[in-house]
């Protein structure tokens, strides 16, 4: 059945503020598609964001939404999840939001393995504030703050998430919305902390400075770089130079989930206390 997108949107808030052709729209659509596929109730789902073009998304989504401060969405979301562990908590973040100002919270959410999903729209730039470089701006790329090309090494967000302990990690790109929706759905269904990095186009701030000022050119550029994981496995390191591997990159069903651990801890301590009380004459 076709998805009734408007059911999940706040139509009175439209039109949205994004530039025509911005990749954030693809991600929001995929997100709604995934939620719909899983049959999650709007009232049981919280969408939390920080600040940025990407982080504007919850403003348009007709769910429980929390629009917070730059970089801290994961901490607010952790609070929501701890208070209501049986509800669904999704965080949508930009590359700057998640890994520059909020980098600390990112690694700790991964480490805890709390059952939430973080969707990072990685457009390699601070879109909202005018195109300053971010921790994912590629080496040599131009940004408002790197007019002569970026010399800062960049983060590989998916690898960072895996290294920090996230238990479901996937990377998609906006040229392939179907797969983005699949990774989001699998991440949402996963019990533990899941991270979906979506390579996205900010043609306005990134593209304009790097000879890709229209969305199509920029999405083509993204498409030219990505290689699905199964194909990459058959490629030599030379062939993989400059390529970005997409797909489900990591899954670990063994590591305990944080709210489960927390509940078990309470039960254990309460049982001990009850036993102690029962032992008293």
């Amino acid at each position, binding site marked *: 059945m076709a998805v009734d997108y408007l059911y999940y949107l706040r139509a009175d808030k439209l039109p949205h503020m994004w530039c025509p052709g911005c990749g954030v729209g693809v991600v929001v659509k995929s997100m709604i598609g995934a939620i719909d596929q899983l049959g999650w109730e709007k009232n049981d789902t919280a969408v939390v964001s920080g600040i940025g073009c990407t982080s504007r998304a919850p403003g348009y989504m007709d769910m429980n939404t929390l629009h917070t401060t730059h970089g801290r969405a994961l901490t607010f979301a952790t609070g929501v999840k701890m208070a209501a562990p049986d509800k669904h908590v999704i965080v949508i973040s930009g590359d700057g939001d998640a890994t*520059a*100002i909020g980098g600390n919270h990112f690694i700790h959410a991964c480490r805890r393995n709390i059952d939430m999903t973080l969707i990072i729209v990685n457009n390699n730039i601070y879109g909202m504030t005018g195109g*300053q470089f971010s*921790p994912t701006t590629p080496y040599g790329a131009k940004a408002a*703050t790197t007019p002569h090309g970026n010399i800062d090494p960049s983060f590989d967000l998916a690898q960072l998430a895996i290294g920090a302990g996230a238990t479901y990690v996937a990377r998609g790109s906006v040229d392939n919305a179907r797969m983005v929706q699949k990774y989001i759905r699998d991440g949402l269904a996963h019990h533990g902390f899941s991270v979906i990095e979506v390579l996205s186009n900010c043609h306005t701030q990134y593209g304009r400075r790097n000879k890709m000022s229209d969305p199509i050119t920029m999405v083509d550029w993204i498409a030219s770089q990505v290689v699905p994981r199964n194909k990459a496995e058959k490629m030599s390191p030379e062939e993989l130079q400059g390529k970005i591997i997409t797909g489900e990159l990591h899954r670990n069903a063994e590591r305990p989930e944080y709210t489960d651990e927390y509940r078990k801890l309470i039960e254990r301590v309460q049982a001990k206390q009850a036993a102690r009380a029962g032992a008293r004459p």
Partner: protein
Amino acid sequence: MPELLALTGNDAVAYAMKQINPDVVAAYPITPQTSLMQKFADFVADGEVDTEMVLVESEHSAMSAVVGSQAAGARTMTATSACGLALMHEVLYIAAGYRLPVVMPVVNRALSAPINIQGDHSDTMGARDAGWIHIFSENAQEAYENTLQAIRIAEHPEVLTPVMVTLDGFIISHGVETVQIFDTARVQQFVGEYKPAFTLLNPHKPMTLGSLDFSDFYFEHKVSQLQGINYSPKVILEVGREFQRTFGGDCCYEHFEAYRMDDAEMAVIVLGSTAGATRMVVDDLRSRGIAAGMVKIRTFRPFPYEELAATLKKVKAVAVMDRSLAYGGDGGPVHIEVRSAMYGVNNAPLMANYIYGLGGKPIDLVHIESVFTDMQQAIATGKFPRRIGYLNLKE
């Protein structure tokens, strides 16, 4: 020769920074400050300054880098707005506690929640007690001149206190005005070289900053920190007068400007850009024979209690305009200070507080006029219609 340029407030401050030529600048973008640093970054990229730019990952890091750099003996600046300033909060106190003469332009903007990017004063008012000097600007020219003077004030050996120079978000930061940019060589002569008496990494005089200090001396150190800011009013006036003598500017160089106050019966008190509109209203009322006046506060910290009381005790009614709220307090923060200034003054004027412009809500001449109408009524009846009013608020 001074140059007349069409500049936004942010550009004007960037020009001041260019002329100051700081050793180090840390930057992180936030609306409406971003274009200020962007302009300054152009000067760096074009080799017009010797500054080393540090592009950090948050404002907390920006202020931390500024503190480290200044402590190591470099003249260091940054600029911010709103939540950026809020995120620096912890480190603001450290800059002041280390007695580092950091100068930071702050482009005033509202704080979340709800999210808003327009101008109001809640950001810097939240940093009211951090130990910084706060200098407000009415327009781009003042923002430029205040930034230049701030270096001299902060670095004065008896002051050694950080200074924030504020300019109203969008109204000043993005509005284009004619700005007089003074001759760079003369500005640099005025600003002088930074020669700190104490710095880190000096093998002849090793030092420690900010170490653990419990009940033995913490209190004593914090009270001694007062010496700097308490000494600053004198320095602010000296520096202002020297600036005016040197460049012949016509901005406010005092702690506050008393506009048509000599024979005024009633006065509005304002900060920042609203002074421009208020001056127009005062002139209009004067032309109709109403004895209106205005006080524009330039230094909010340290607050000029005694001088202000001396000026205000001559009028019958005072209306304090606040562009932020002191939740749980007596209206807005400026009002609280003015009331405090008037305590113990015989026959003190009637006083009320008007909150306006939160989150960029427009303040028009009619709103300011209505404040004067209230004052006329207060003088006639002996009572303001309300203690705290809200201008241009939807009911």
